[in-house]
């Protein structure tokens, strides 16, 4: 305990008691203040400085032979293409660009809750229902989002869109780097 014994032995009885009472306790308030200040500091810095990360798996580059086959087999009703342009612009379409699905013609959207997410969520549920109803589809089949970043897109755009994929629980998505001139035209003003 924080008690200090003073070596004060001289003097009368009354005086001795008085001096003991004065020194019996050290004021710890300032020390506690300091300790809590430091605790707060270390608590905040430890939890905030730990970086977060987003895991990204890309397909193997070497077995490109299988890719085109797979893409042809995929039902166009299940694909949604998102083209990321410069100046935080997005154009998306459902199905093929030339013959889009009903309600899926190339449309401009914004990032975030009110923009692209609504469209993705709508299609996640509708395509899942479509796949369940269709005969011959495997369980787990659902929407396939094809992300096509153009050269003007920023890294933030890419992470934002990948984040949307995680938020919306899109079953399958891929980053595709070959952009057709028609698609490029969508995002160039």
């Amino acid at each position, binding site marked *: *305990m*924080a008690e200090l014994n003073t070596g004060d032995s001289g003097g009368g009885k009354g005086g001795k008691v008085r001096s003991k009472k004065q020194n019996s*306790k050290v*004021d*710890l*308030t300032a*020390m*506690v203040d300091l*300790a*809590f200040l*430091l*605790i707060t500091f*270390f*608590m905040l*810095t*430890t939890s905030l*400085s*730990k*970086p*977060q*990360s*987003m*895991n*990204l*798996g*890309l*397909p*193997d*580059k*070497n077995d490109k032979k299988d890719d085109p086959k797979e893409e042809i087999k995929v039902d166009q009703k299940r694909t949604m293409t998102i083209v*990321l342009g410069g100046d935080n612009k997005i154009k998306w379409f459902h199905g093929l660009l030339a013959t889009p699905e009903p309600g899926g013609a190339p449309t401009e959207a914004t990032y*975030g*809750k009110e923009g692209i997410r609504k469209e993705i969520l709508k299609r996640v549920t509708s395509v899942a229902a479509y796949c369940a109803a269709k005969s011959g589809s495997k369980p787990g089949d659902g929407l396939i989002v094809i992300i096509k*970043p*153009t*050269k*003007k*897109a*920023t*890294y*933030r*755009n*890419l*992470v*934002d869109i*990948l*984040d949307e994929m*995680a*938020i919306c629980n899109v079953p399958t998505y891929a980053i595709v*780097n070959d952009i057709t001139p028609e698609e490029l035209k969508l995002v160039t003003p």
Partner: protein
Amino acid sequence: MAQIKMSKKAASIDMTAMCDVAFLLLTFFILTATAKVPEPVNVDTPSSTVKTKLPDIGLVTITVGKGKDNVFFDIKGRDIRRKTLELMSDKYKVSFTDQEKDQFALMESFGVPIESLSSIIKMKSAERNKVGLQPGVPFDSINNQLKDWIYTARQANIELGNQKDLDFAIKGDAKLEYPKIKKIMDILQDQDINTFDLVTGLRGKDY
């Protein structure tokens, strides 16, 4: 008499227990805290809602700054760092003294061609991390040192007998244009590293 006693009791609370607890917690947080590392390049990472934490050991971080070729390389783990430098010095015929190797093992990320690495090692930590001092690790097609750093780091990891392969993280600035990130991803993918982490900041729930 009784009145005086009462007032004396209430004048100060016994802080000893509180102080004990406070210092216990303080010790805990100091010991668990990892010091924030000063970085030679300011990177404003994009934010995401995904909350995967990065591993503490066996992690290679490639930091990509906003500038032209600002690519910095960092390996976590002293043994791997030392071994990687030894393998790189063999490859590029640039020799380092034992002291330099020890110093390199303690360093953080660097962004210089291997030819001028020893001058960076000699500097003090504060000088070294001045923004704009280090030009970045070259990674163009003629002189792709970044590729070799990645390759030798993996080699060093295997030679040290670690079972787990290294993890790779890309820490890019939010304003970077996509082709530059793509180039880094391509360098990784050329070595069959198809899974890696993108370092992001925290974003609020209601995004």
